[in-house]
């Protein structure tokens, strides 16, 4: 498995962030992990990366329910960014609201990125599979 350059974790729940990070540490090879408490902080971070280092994240773990800017609002802004590479975005949520799944399908169709829908909790055994970067 090749080494992943950059992973983003966007979630306001510190325990979830801790968990994902711990699983990635033991299961996946990567260079950097950046974490953001809400969508707004994350989109600002990505815009900054685009302007400076151009090292865009290959895999993003994205929570839906967050203050200030939630997962959907983040996606809305992210998919219009001038990113040619196909980014893997794993939506990670505890929501079972069908409306959320509909939203996911909507963005999946709308974007050239690979978007997946995952329900919490994520098992250590699954983490490697969903952290394989998109082609």
């Amino acid at each position, binding site marked *: 498995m090749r080494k992943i350059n950059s992973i983003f974790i966007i979630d306001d*729940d510190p325990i979830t962030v801790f968990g994902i990070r711990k699983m990635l540490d033991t299961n996946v090879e990567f260079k950097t992990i950046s974490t953001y408490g809400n969508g707004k902080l994350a989109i600002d971070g990505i815009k900054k990366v685009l302007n400076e280092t151009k090292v865009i994240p290959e895999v993003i773990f994205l929570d839906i329910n967050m*203050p200030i800017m939630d997962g959907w609002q983040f996606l809305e802004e992210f998919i219009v960014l001038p990113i040619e590479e196909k980014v893997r975005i794993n939506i990670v949520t505890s929501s079972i609201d069908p409306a959320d799944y509909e939203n996911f399908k909507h963005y999946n169709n709308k974007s050239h990125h690979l978007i997946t829908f995952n329900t919490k909790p994520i*098992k250590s055994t699954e983490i490697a599979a969903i952290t394989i970067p998109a082609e």
Partner: protein
Amino acid sequence: MLKRSQIDTNNYLIKQLPKATAFLNEKLEVVYASDLWVKDFEFTNGKVIGQKISDLLKHISGDLQKDFKECLKGKIGSRIKECYPDKDNPKNWTEWINIPWYDEKENIIGIIVQTEVITKKINNDSNIERLQLLLQEKSSNANIGSWQYDADLNSLWWCDMTKQIHEIDANFIPKIETCFDFYKEGHSKNTISMAFFEASEKGLPWKEKLQIVTEKGNEKWIVTTGKPIYKDDKCIGLVGTFRDINEQVLTNKKTKENELLLRTLFDSLPLNVFVKDLDSRKILVNKAELNFLGLKNESEALGKTDFDFLNKKNALIGREEDIRVMENGIPMLKKETTNIKKDGTITSFLTSKIPLKAASGEITGLVGINLDISDIKNKEKELKNLIDVTSLQNKKLVNFAHIVSHNLRSHTANFSMLLEFLVSEKDEKEKENLVKMLVKASDHLLETMNNLNEVVVINTNVNLKKKNISLNKKIKSVEKNLSVFFKNKNAKIINTINDDVKINVIPAYLDSILMNLFTNAIMYKSPDRDPIITLGTTNENGYKILSINDNGLGIDLKKYGDKLFGMYKTFHDNADAKGIGLFLTKNQIEAMGGKITASSEVGKGTTFNLYFNEKN
């Protein structure tokens, strides 16, 4: 010569006879003739004597010729009517009486004829006959009989029709003593007895509508008239008519009854019914319509139009409908109409307008029928409100279910994940760390449970009763509780609410709502200025509206509008924000039958409008 002179003397005498007379010899030649005879037959004088009667008269009937022959044999003839034409009259009638003419020796020497012109009499006789026939015909067709009373003979006469009306035999001979027995006891009998008395004694005529009981026992309505006849100022009797009006009276009665029945039906209908003429003027209205118009008497409504009772726009629509119905002849059926009267009262009707046609088929107006469906309409509205409330409740319930499941799931997911780590963790220090995190997760779960419980309590607690309390008192007490917080942030309240404003609320909820909104206004204050909260009230459609305005950061409602009152939604970079305050506020105001809205401008401030339901 003597003989000659004798003849001349005879001739002279006969000429002057006062009756038309002629002497004929055996050859039926005229020997003598009175001037009257010559004149009656219009013979030319001097050309009569010596002429044969058959030559003088153009036509002699066989009867007369036979009579002449019999007469010459000594038989006295009978009266014979002869018809002959003359220049004025195609039908002249004369009556002939012929007797034998004897000489001194009793020898028959001719015939003495006496004639009389009877044309007039004949005509009169046939006239009377005709009149009698006519009268008979008339009386039988019109059911009018007649009667006469001869005072001298004390005799009463009834015509056939009078007898028929009494249903009595044609041979019956009425008597004045018993004839009143046919009248019905009571009013009828008393009236006719009195009338008869007054007529005979005072000469007063009568005309009365009375009831008789016929020979066969049937009751009948009749009209009897009577009039005294005078001769030399003395009443010699009475004449009168007797008319059967039973059918007419019964028909009239029936018609009246039918009219009454129709009117009663018309007035008792639980529908507003009216008839309009071509100019949409009311020409007939029933009780229900009168009640609707707020009138007592039909006369107040007649001749008036919708313009007299409804507002102008309404009346115009009505008039257009009328014209359409009357022009096309097509009824307008069961159209839902809203009628606003001049006093502003609104009534919903199911209106039908049907063209009214005269016997000739020409449209002369319309019949209108209005069914008051205001109650049904109100029920419909109530039902719709109920459905709205129910669907809102349902939506809230689904929403709440998602909130619960989402929040519980996120915590349990954390538990599950942390426990998985703990099981496979070797490092003691890391194990300790994981346990700490588990405790934290447990605390969060507990807090979430408490918050959710609070929401459940708000939505299900029906024991809390609303009270009418002074709004300002409540505001002041909340302000006092927050006084330290207000002082620290240099905040102040500008209250424009009158002290007498009272609102109908669950006091604890109002406490919590004010506390939340005041705290928010200060927590999200603008860094550039001291927080100022402005309070005011207005009234709208049964709601008392409390507006709480601040000069804080404001919030982009385009972005966050739909989430503003959501659970665990926060919008500012504030570590203290839990995203529960507005969620609870919304639940509390809705539990009191009210609602909350917000308007905001980023950088300027936010206004929350709290709608307190005044009714329940």
